[in-house]
């Protein structure tokens, strides 16, 4: 076997785990003549830093590489027989074997900065196939693939393209890379690891819809992704795949616009305002972006994920792509798993996979309690509801959304009321302030949750909170407000008991014990009435009929588990 090259995974996650140090040290110690290349991230962030020895016949991926492992790797480069299996990534692990890698096939395998490597792996085959068709036929193909927007709302992509195809020029195509959804990082991974695929998707979209002006709106928090994209765009200009008369068929140019940190700018109309250099506030529709978008020109906006799927569909063929997925949710979806799990990272799964397989086999969530699907606009799905297929409709029925595909896992230590308040704190801060239901409503909702967490809630507050949620959902202008109450509604729906635990019983005189009690028994020892009971290590209870409100227990508790009722 001949060693072709050594690669080091250098996505932001890899670098944060020390991949740059590993690469430097590897280069220093390396005493054979072989190139050391940078690649992106193969998606298994929990195994970073990753070093690959690429031989002509097979590859070896070393996981969790530290400085001390480097001599072994170099030894392995010379004598592959000596490589120990325990140092390698086990691709038979369900984390990998349960995946269907179509769009993410090349991430972490190719050098994201190399145009040649992208082409060697089948790059721009999709574009070439697309331009052989008439633009309208190309849109039909996307329709057949059942592709739906991968950013949030899941709107059918072909339908969206049809809206703009007959609009007058100039027309704009915007790639939405403003991944502000906490818990989602698939766009960052894609742009850092396989940027040409996204650009190819844009080229196909431009050809199909006739949009000659391209804009990539990307968040400023992703410096590495921006740098990688800038280089790729420059290369494409040199290769005449951007500019005038591309493949003799169409004109297209791309500009990068950096965001400045506003979650609401992921919403189409707000994003367009931000592109124009204004405050990113959503607009009422109609007019729809396809009629009157950025600077008043017809505009089509697609997410990074959607566009990389477009490139993949044309490259692999509709037939291959629709082998996966369900009747109404076609193909695959890239999701991110993070939080209280053993395996965190970016994975690509076919729609229709059982949610419990994601939880138990891919993410491996032990002591699993719930997962938040779709970020602040999504909802919590409890353990009892995971035996369902993962697709747009089913997840929506559960009160959550597929959304961007971010999944954050929680275990029994996480308090669901606190989780709901966390999301409200986020949406409250990110509400742009334009419409009253969202601006004021999220404040009031946040106040209600604070009331619960401070043990000030009363009978009827749960019902009032639910009502408030409905009002906001029905009347807010844009998606941010309309979906902001989702985390609250789903946590009430599935974890009502936790909310009820915060409502003080009517018979409480002054003091009561909260679930924060660890059962140290200190309060029972100091109570002059002897009215506190409970087993050691278990939550204690005050017999309210005997309590004389002396406050001895309150002063004795070291865990702030005894609370004084406030009026």
């Amino acid at each position, binding site marked *: 076997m001949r060693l072709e090259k050594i690669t080091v995974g250098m996505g*932001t*996650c890899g*670098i*944060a*785990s020390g991949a740059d140090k590993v690469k430097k040290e590897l280069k220093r110690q390396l005493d054979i003549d072989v190139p050391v290349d940078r690649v992106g991230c193969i998606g298994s*962030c*929990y195994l*970073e830093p990753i070093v690959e020895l690429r031989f002509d016949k097979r590859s070896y991926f070393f996981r969790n590489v530290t400085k001390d492992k480097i001599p072994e790797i170099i030894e392995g480069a010379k004598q592959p027989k000596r490589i120990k299996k325990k140092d390698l990534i086990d691709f038979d692990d369900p984390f990998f074997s349960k995946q269907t890698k179509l769009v993410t096939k090349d991430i972490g395998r190719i050098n994201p900065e190399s145009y040649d490597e992208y082409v060697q792996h089948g790059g721009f085959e999709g574009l070439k196939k697309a331009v052989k068709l008439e633009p309208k036929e190309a849109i039909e193909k996307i329709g057949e693939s059942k592709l739906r927007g991968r950013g949030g709302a899941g709107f059918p992509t072909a339908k969206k393209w049809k809206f703009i195809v007959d609009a007058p020029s100039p027309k704009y195509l915007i790639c939405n890379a403003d*991944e*502000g*959804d*906490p*818990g*989602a*990082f698939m766009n*960052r991974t894609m742009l850092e690891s396989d940027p040409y695929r996204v650009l190819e998707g844009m080229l196909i979209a431009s050809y199909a819809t006739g949009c000659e002006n391209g804009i990539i709106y990307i968040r*400023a*928090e*992703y*410096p590495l992704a921006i740098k990688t994209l800038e280089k790729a765009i420059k290369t494409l200009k040199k290769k005449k795949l951007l500019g005038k008369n591309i493949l003799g068929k169409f004109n297209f140019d791309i500009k990068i*616009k*950096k*965001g*400045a*940190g*506003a*979650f609401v700018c992921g919403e189409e109309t707000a994003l367009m305002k*931000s*592109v*124009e*250099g*204004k*405050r*990113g506030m959503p607009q009422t529709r109609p007019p729809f972006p396809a009629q009157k978008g950025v*600077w008043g020109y017809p505009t089509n906006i697609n997410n990074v994920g959607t566009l990389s799927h477009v490139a993949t569909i044309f490259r692999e063929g509709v037939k291959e792509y629709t082998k996966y997925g369900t009747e109404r949710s076609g193909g695959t979806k890239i999701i*991110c798993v*993070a*939080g*209280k799990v053993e395996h*965190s*990272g970016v994975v690509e799964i076919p729609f229709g996979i059982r949610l419990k397989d994601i939880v138990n086999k891919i993410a491996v969530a032990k002591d699993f309690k719930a997962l*938040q699907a779709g*970020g*602040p606009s999504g909802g919590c799905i409890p353990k009892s509801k995971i035996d369902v297929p993962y697709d747009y409709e089913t997840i929506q029925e559960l009160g959550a959304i597929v959304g961007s595909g*971010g999944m*954050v*896992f*929680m275990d029994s230590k*996480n308090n669901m009321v606190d*989780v709901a308040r*966390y*999301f409200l704190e*986020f949406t409250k801060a*990110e509400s*742009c302030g334009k419409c009253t239901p969202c601006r004021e409503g999220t404040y009031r909702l946040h106040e209600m949750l604070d009331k619960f967490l401070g043990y000030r809630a009363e009978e009827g507050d749960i019902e009032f909170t639910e009502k408030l949620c409905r009002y906001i959902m029905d009347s807010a202008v844009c998606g941010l407000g309309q979906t902001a109450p989702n985390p609250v509604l789903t946590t009430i729906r599935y974890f009502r008991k936790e909310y009820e635990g915060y409502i003080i019983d009517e018979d409480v005189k002054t003091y009561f014990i909260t679930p924060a009690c660890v059962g140290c028994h200190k309060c029972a020892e100091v109570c002059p009435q002897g009215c506190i009971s409970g087993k050691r290590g278990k939550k204690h209870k005050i017999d309210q009929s005997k309590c004389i409100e002396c406050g001895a227990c309150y002063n004795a508790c070291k865990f702030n588990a005894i609370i004084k009722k406030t009026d």
Partner: protein
Amino acid sequence: MSKKEVLDRHEGREDELINVLQEIQEKEGYLSPKTLAYVSKHMDIPYAKVYGVATFYNFFKLKPGGKYTIQMCKGTACHVKGSSELFDHLKKKLDVEENGTTEDGIFTLSPVNCLGMCSLAPCMMINGKVYSELDKERLDSIIDDMRK
């Protein structure tokens, strides 16, 4: 690059306002009222609009910051793994409020929505470098090292 050069490079186009402010902030560390007035005058955009944009986006700072800006991630994955306790710990340790700067002018502590490093939560970014899988001890040693 001076303010004027930044403006010239963007040809004073209105849609470049966010980029212009970003580049000036990168140079000067923050956006002073004087800077905003300068941009307003030279780009021919009303001051109120420039101010509106500068206050709308989390990225812009209207007050000077410390030598190091600690951006503590407040993403969901970080939250469920205890980032809010770490944030409170830092507040106490540095004796600053949210978005405040330490008295010696070394650290500014500000939250950031999500760094997209959820797989390595909890995490933070200090002057562009990401620190991941934090706990109190690691946080303390990073901060103490920078103080030296």
